[in-house]
Each structure stands twice: as C-alpha cells, then as structure tokens.
C-alpha cells in the first residue's frame, strides 16, 4: 500500500494544538517545553492523523483538477452519490513507542486491516473497515501504530 512522507514541523504542531483548543506550552513554546519532562516540543497524541495533509491522493481534500462533492453553485459539485457518503469514523487507536517531535521525517505506511459487518437499529447495515498506519522515523524505527476503523452506514444515523 501507499507510503507517505510526513515531515513534522513546529508550526503545524502549533496549528493542530490550537485546533483542539490545547494551550499546553509543550506544543508551541520551545523554551518552556525544554523544562518539561518531554524535554522539548512534542506533538499532541492525535497529531499523527494529520498525515492526511501529506497524502497526495487524499480523497477528502479538494483539488483544482477534480470535481468536489461539497456544495458550490449547487448543494454538491458532482452527479450522483459521492464515494465516501455515509462513511463515518467508528474507532481510532494509537500505540506510541515514542512521541514525535518537530524535525522528525516520518514515513507512514497504510495497510488495509480487518473488515466486518453488523446490523444496527439507528443506521441499518454497518460495514466496518480497519485501516492500519505504521509511522516510522528517519532511522526506520517504528514510532506509532494507528488503527482507524471506518463504518459505512446504510442510511444517515438516526438522531433519536
């Protein structure tokens, strides 16, 4: 499967921490971070998900040469149902061997995992798919393993 090069930058970590409302200086202030147990700036634990930024074929980012399924002149920019419609995130798991730092150049390898089905009252037939991402550093060491489990629903989830 795809291998993605993921350069970890301090400004990206800062923007990510802002987006999750985390003001911990260990994510943006090099001087303050030096005096913490982390010994310098590290990334928040869910930061590895932003590898999407570096996937050249990521399907949830609009591209100038392709029609986008979000709204523009009409409520969607494409004909018919988008491929990802109804796909929701069911579970996410991280295993950390160490925490990533600015300057790391990670290689993320994405592999398909298990697939299973379940019946649900709120959304009909559910199909679960595990996607495993292994993040290795510039020395080839495994840094983080992530399991992202997506679910495709038969219909939008009932809010009752």
């Amino acid at each position, binding site marked *: 499967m795809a291998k993605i090069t993921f350069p970890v930058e301090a400004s*990206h970590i800062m*923007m*990510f921490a*802002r*987006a*999750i*409302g*985390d003001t*911990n200086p*260990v994510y943006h202030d090099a001087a303050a971070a030096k005096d*913490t*147990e*982390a010994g310098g700036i*590290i990334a*928040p*634990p*869910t930061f590895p*998900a*932003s*590898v*999407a*930024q*570096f*996937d050249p074929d*990521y399907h*949830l*980012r*609009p591209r100038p040469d392709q029609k986008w*399924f*979000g*709204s523009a002149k009409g*409520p*969607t920019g494409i004909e018919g149902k988008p491929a*990802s*419609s*109804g796909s*929701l*995130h*069911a*579970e*996410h*798991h*991280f*295993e*950390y061997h*160490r*925490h990533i730092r600015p300057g790391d150049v990670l290689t993320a390898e994405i592999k398909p995992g298990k697939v299973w089905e379940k019946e649900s009252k709120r959304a009909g037939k559910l199909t679960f798919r595990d996607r495993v991402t292994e993040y290795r550093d510039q020395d080839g060491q495994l840094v983080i393993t992530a*399991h992202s489990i997506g679910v495709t629903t038969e*219909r*939008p*989830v009932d*809010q009752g």
Partner: protein
Amino acid sequence: MALKASALKVGDTHSERVVENLSRTQIIQYAGASGDYNPLHTDEVYTTQVAGYPTVFAHGMLTMGLTGKMLTNYVGDGTLTKFGVRFTNQVWPGDTLVSKATVVALREEGGHHYVDLTLSTTNQDGKEVVSGSASARIDP
C-alpha cells in the same frame, strides 16, 4: 509532571471541560490543521441537503483530540503508551463536552510503572460521545 504510582489508586478520576459551546469555526480550524476537509464537517449546504444530517458535525478526531487534552493534562507530556477511542455519538456545534479518566489498573513491567485508564467524554445532555482507554508511563 508525570503521575506517581504511590499517589494513585484504582478508582481515582480526573475530569475537565474540554470545550464549551463548540463553534463551527473550531471545526473548520480542525479541518485545516488535520487536512480532513470532508464537507460533512464544514459545509452546511451539502450536509443538510445532500447527506441528510440536521447540521454539520465535528470530526471524530477532533473529539478524540479534545479528550486527549484532558488525558495529557492528567498523565503528563510524552508519557502515553496507548490511547484508543470509540465514537459513540456525534458531536454537534453548540455542544459542551466533559472528558473523564478513571484509573482501572496500576502495573509494573520491566522496571517501569504504568497506569491504565478508561475514558469517557459526554455532552451537555449526559450522552457519551467517546468511550475509550489509555495507558501511560508513570513515576514510582
């Protein structure tokens, strides 16, 4: 500061309000930072008229990130060894979320001390939006 095994016991809890009145702008901020531009999170017209939801909703990974903020405030920086969640309900603009960690085990492995936690994030109606677990390295 890392937690100390000697100061912890099974059943201890830590909770924090991780977001108050979640704004659509914060969801957009998360889309920009994470690179996940799924219109279900940012595009009201698409989400209501095409996807059939009442309004846009937060990325699961935003809710996990908010839960992680409580978690790292509790266990310290760079000490997590595992962090996993299930997204049990959607998170909507206007939601106020409280995340809670509960100590379920303290263990020693290869000369290191670890704490195992269960996690729960609930909204203003008491509905759970994330359930999960985590482990972190702690001091003796």
